[in-house]
C-alpha cells in the first residue's frame, strides 16, 4: 500500500504529514521536531546541511547558508519580489540564462528548486526512517498566489528530491481539507494565514467536492517574526534607557533577547502578563548586569496594533476582489502560529461575526490537509475508499453526555462517560445500603451534574429477590451497553441469586443538540456547587455506615465492654445523628471523627482482653498469631478508620 506524503514547504519552516489508521498525523523529523527549518547549507567542510543544523551554523557561514528559497523559486530575476528579497539576503544571487534566479553556494550556482529539493530530500529520508517504508510520492503545497512557473519549479524541486509529485495544491485549500470543509456544499471560506514571515489571505469557494480559489491577498513581508522583533526592540530600548548599554552589539545577548522575546510572545497568548528575566545579560565596569522586565498582553497588543490592523485591511481588500462581503463568508480557517494570539482571533471574529476554525494546530494544518489529499489519491489508485471515509461507513458515534445510575444519597455515578466511542459496554458492582434489603432501585440518568435529580432521567427499574443480608454484602452487577445505534441497555444482576432485570432505552444518544448544549452548560455553571453537594452527600454516606457499624459492634460487644466505653460511643452516636442531616459539612466530619475514635475503643478493649486471656493460657506463638487476626475481622470499623 503506497503512502503519499503531504508536505507543507514553507518559507521559513516545513512540515510533513501522512494518513495512518484513518487519521492524518504529523511525522517528526530525525531531530524529533514537528517542523523543519527550510534552510540548506554547504558547510565549511564541504558537507551539505539541512534544517536546524544548517541554521545553527548560519552566522559563521552566512554566504553558503540558503534560507527563504521559496521567495525566489520560479521567479524571474527582474521580479520586484526578488529585488526586494535580495536586500535581506546574506548570500549571492544572480540572473540565470533563462532569466530566472541562481544562488551561489560554495563555488557553484544553484537553482532555487535545488535548494528546496535539499529540504524535501531530508523530509523524505526522515519520513522513511520514521515509517520504516519507502515513500515515493508526495503532495506539496504552495501559496494560492503562486503562478504556473512557481508551481512547476516547486514540482521540479520535489522530483529532484526523488519524489513523484502527485499534485501541487494550494495551502489554503489544504487547510480547508484538514477541516473537512470540502464536504460542504456551496460555501465561501476565508483562510487567514499569519506565518513566521508572510501573511496570506485567500477566499475559497466550495462546491461539489471542488475547492476553487476566488481571490488571494496578503503581504509577503509581514509575519510573526516582526512581532518578535518589536519585543526585542522594546527590550533593547528599555535597557538602553535604564542602563545605558546597547545590547545589540553583543551577539550572545542578542540571541538571548531574541529567544526571550519569542517566548514572551507565546506566553502572552495564554497569560495576561509575563516576565522577561535574563540575569547576567552583560557587564560593565561595575560588574555583571541583569535584565528583568514585565510585559503585559496589552503592551504587546499595542506594539503590534498596526500589523494586526493591516492584516484585517488586507482581508477586506481580498473580500472586495472576490466581490463578497464579510457576512457572506460561511467558514474561516486560521493558519500559522501567529494566529494563536488572542488579539488576532478577536480581530478576525469581529470582522466576520463568527468563530474561526482553529482546533487543528495552525503550524500543522496545511501539512495535515496535504496528507488528506494524498490519502484521497492513493485510495483512488487502489480502488478503495479513503481511510477516513471507511470510518464514515462505520459511523462510529460518541456519547454526547455521560450515563450512569443514581446511588446512595442521590449521587449520580457515571458508568459510561461522555465522548466515549460507541458501541461500548461497562459494568460495575454495587451493593445494598440497608440490612436485609431485598430489592434495589436502578435509576438510569444522563448528564454531567453530580446529583442525580439534576440530570435527565432515562428510566428506572427494580431488581428484587435479593436474599436478605447485611448492608454492603450483596453484589449487584450493573451492566451498561450502548450499541451502534445508540440504544442503551441496562442490566442489573444479583450475583448470589443470579436474578437479573434489564431495561432498554432507545435514543440515549439521539438527544437534541440544543439539549446537549444546555445540559453541558448547566454542568459547567453548577460545577462548584455540585462538587460541594456531592462532598456533603459522600460525608453523610460515610456517617451512615459508621453509625451502622458502631451500633452493630456496640450490640455485639454488649456486656464485654465497660459501661464508660459503651456510654461514650452511645453519646457520640447521638451527636452524629443530630448533625448528620445538616448542611455544614465540617460539623458532620468532626462528629464522624469523634465517633470513629470512640468506637475504636471497643475493638481495642476486646483485643487487649483477648491478649490477656491467651497469655494466661500460655499457648504457643503460632496460636497467638492466629488469634490476633480474629478481632480485626469481627470489628470491621477498625479497618475503616
Amino acid at each position, binding site marked *: 500500500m503506497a503512502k503519499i506524503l503531504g508536505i507543507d514547504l514553507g518559507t521559513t519552516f516545513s512540515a510533513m504529514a501522512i494518513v495512518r489508521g484513518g487519521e492524518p498525523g504529523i511525522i517528526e523529523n530525525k531531530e524529533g521536531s514537528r517542523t523543519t527549518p527550510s534552510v540548506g547549507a554547504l558547510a565549511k567542510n564541504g558537507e551539505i546541511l539541512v534544517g536546524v543544523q544548517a541554521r*545553527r551554523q548560519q*552566522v*559563521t557561514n552566512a554566504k553558503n547558508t540558503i534560507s527563504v528559497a521559496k521567495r525566489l523559486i520560479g521567479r524571474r530575476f527582474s521580479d520586484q519580489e526578488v529585488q526586494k528579497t535580495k536586500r535581506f539576503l546574506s548570500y549571492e544571487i544572480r540572473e540565470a540564462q533563462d532569466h530566472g534566479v541562481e544562488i551561489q553556494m560554495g563555488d557553484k550556482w544553484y537553482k532555487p528548486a535545488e535548494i528546496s529539493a535539499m529540504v524535501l530530500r531530508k523530509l523524505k529520508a526522515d519520513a522513511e526512517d520514521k515509517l520504516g517504508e519507502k515513500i515515493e510520492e508526495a503532495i506539496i503545497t504552495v501559496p494560492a498566489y503562486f503562478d504556473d512557473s512557481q508551481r512547476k519549479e516547486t514540482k521540479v524541486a520535489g522530483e529532484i528530491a526523488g519524489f513523484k509529485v502527485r499534485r501541487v495544491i494550494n495551502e489554503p485549500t489544504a487547510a480547508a481539507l484538514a477541516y473537512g470543509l470540502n464536504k460542504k456544499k456551496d460555501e465561501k471560506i476565508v483562510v487567514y494565514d499569519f506565518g513566521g514571515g508572510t501573511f496570506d489571505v485567500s477566499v475559497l469557494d466550495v462546491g461539489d467536492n471542488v475547492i476553487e480559489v476566488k481571490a488571494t491577498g496578503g503581504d509577503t513581508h509581514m509575519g510573526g517574526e516582526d512581532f518578535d522583533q518589536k519585543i526585542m526592540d522594546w527590550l533593547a530600548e528599555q535597557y538602553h534607557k535604564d542602563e545605558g548599554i546597547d545590547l545589540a552589539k553583543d551577539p550572545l545577548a542578542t540571541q538571548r533577547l531574541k529567544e526571550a522575546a519569542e517566548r514572551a510572545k507565546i506566553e502572552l497568548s495564554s497569560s495576561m502578563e509575563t516576565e522577561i528575566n535574563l540575569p547576567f545579560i552583560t557587564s560593565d565596569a561595575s560588574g555583571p548586569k541583569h535584565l528583568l522586565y514585565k510585559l503585559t498582553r496589552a503592551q504587546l497588543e499595542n506594539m503590534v496594533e498596526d500589523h494586526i490592523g493591516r492584516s484585517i485591511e488586507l482581508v477586506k481588500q481580498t473580500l472586495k476582489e472576490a466581490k463578497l462581503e464579510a457576512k457572506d463568508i460561511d467558514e474561516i480557517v486560521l493558519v500559522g502560529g501567529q494566529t494563536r494570539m488572542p488579539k488576532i482571533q478577536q480581530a478576525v471574529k469581529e470582522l466576520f461575526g463568527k468563530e474561526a476554525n482553529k482546533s487543528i494546530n495552525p503550524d500543522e494544518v496545511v501539512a495535515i490537509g496535504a496528507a488528506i489529499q494524498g490519502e484521497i489519491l492513493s485510495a483512488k489508485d487502489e480502488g478503495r475508499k479513503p481511510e477516513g471515509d471507511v470510518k464514515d461507513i462505520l459511523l*462510529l458515534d460518541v456519547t454526547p453526555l455521560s450515563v450512569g445510575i443514581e446511588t446512595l444519597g442521590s449521587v449520580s455515578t457515571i458508568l459510561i462517560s461522555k465522548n466515549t*466511542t460507541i458501541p*461500548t459496554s461497562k459494568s460495575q458492582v454495587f451493593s445494598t445500603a440497608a440490612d436485609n434489603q431485598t430489592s434495589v432501585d436502578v435509576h438510569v440518568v444522563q448528564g454531567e451534574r453530580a446529583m442525580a435529580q439534576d440530570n435527565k432521567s432515562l428510566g428506572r427499574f427494580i431488581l428484587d429477590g435479593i436474599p436478605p443480608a447485611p448492608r454492603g454484602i450483596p453484589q449487584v452487577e450493573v451492566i451498561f451497553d450502548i450499541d451502534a445505534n445508540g440504544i442503551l441497555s441496562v442490566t442489573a444482576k444479583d450475583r448470589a441469586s443470579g436474578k437479573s432485570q434489564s431495561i432498554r432505552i432507545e435514543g440515549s444518544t439521539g438527544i437534541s443538540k440544543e439539549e446537549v448544549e444546555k445540559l453541558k452548560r448547566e454542568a459547567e455553571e453548577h460545577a462548584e456547587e455540585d462538587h460541594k453537594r456531592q462532598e456533603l452527600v459522600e460525608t453523610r454516606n460515610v456517617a451512615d455506615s459508621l453509625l451502622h457499624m458502631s451500633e452493630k459492634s456496640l450490640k455485639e460487644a454488649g456486656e464485654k465492654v465497660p459501661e464508660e466505653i459503651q456510654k461514650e460511643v452511645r453519646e457520640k452516636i447521638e451527636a452524629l445523628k443530630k448533625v448528620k442531616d445538616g448542611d455544614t459539612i465540617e460539623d458532620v466530619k468532626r462528629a464522624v471523627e469523634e465517633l470513629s475514635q470512640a468506637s475504636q475503643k471497643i475493638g481495642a478493649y476486646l483485643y487487649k482482653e483477648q491478649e490477656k486471656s491467651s497469655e494466661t493460657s500460655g499457648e504457643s506463638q503460632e496460636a497467638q498469631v492466629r488469634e490476633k487476626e480474629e478481632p480485626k475481622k469481627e470489628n470491621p470499623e477498625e479497618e475503616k478508620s
Partner: protein
Amino acid sequence: MKKKDELEKSIELERERDEYLAGWKRARADFENYKKEENSRRRELSLRSREEVLIRLLPVLDSLERALQSARNSRGDILKGLSQIQSQLKEALSACGIQEIVPADGEEFDPSLHEAIGEIKVSGVPPGMIAQVAEKGYMFSGNVLRPARVLIASGKE
C-alpha cells in the same frame, strides 16, 4: 423449492453480515476508546515525569533563596554559597539524565551539537574552529536539548 432455499440462505447471510458488522464496529469503538484512554494516560505520565524533575529542582531554589537572604542580611561568603548552589543544580540535572556539551577551544564545529552565534578574531585557533564557548549545551537521552553556543574563529581578512 429452490427459491425458498435461496431466500433462507440470504436471510442467513444478512444475519451473519449484521453480526460481523456489529462485531467490527465494537472492535473499532474499543480501539477508539483505548486511544482516548491512552491519551489521558500519556498526559498523566508526562505530568508525573515532570514532577520528578521539579522535585529535584526545589532544593536548588531553596538554597538560592537562602543565599539571597544572607546576601541581604550580611556580607557572608556569598560566592562560595553560589558555587555550591551551582553544583547542587548540576547534580539535580545530571540525576535526571542531562549531559553537558562543552566543546574545547579549537575543536571542530559540529552543527549537530553546536550553534554558531558569531565570529571572533583570535590567535592560536585555526579559522572555522571553535574559538570560545559562550553558553554550554545540554543533551538528554541522546537528544540535543540545546546546542552549545559558540563563537567561531574568523579567518584573517
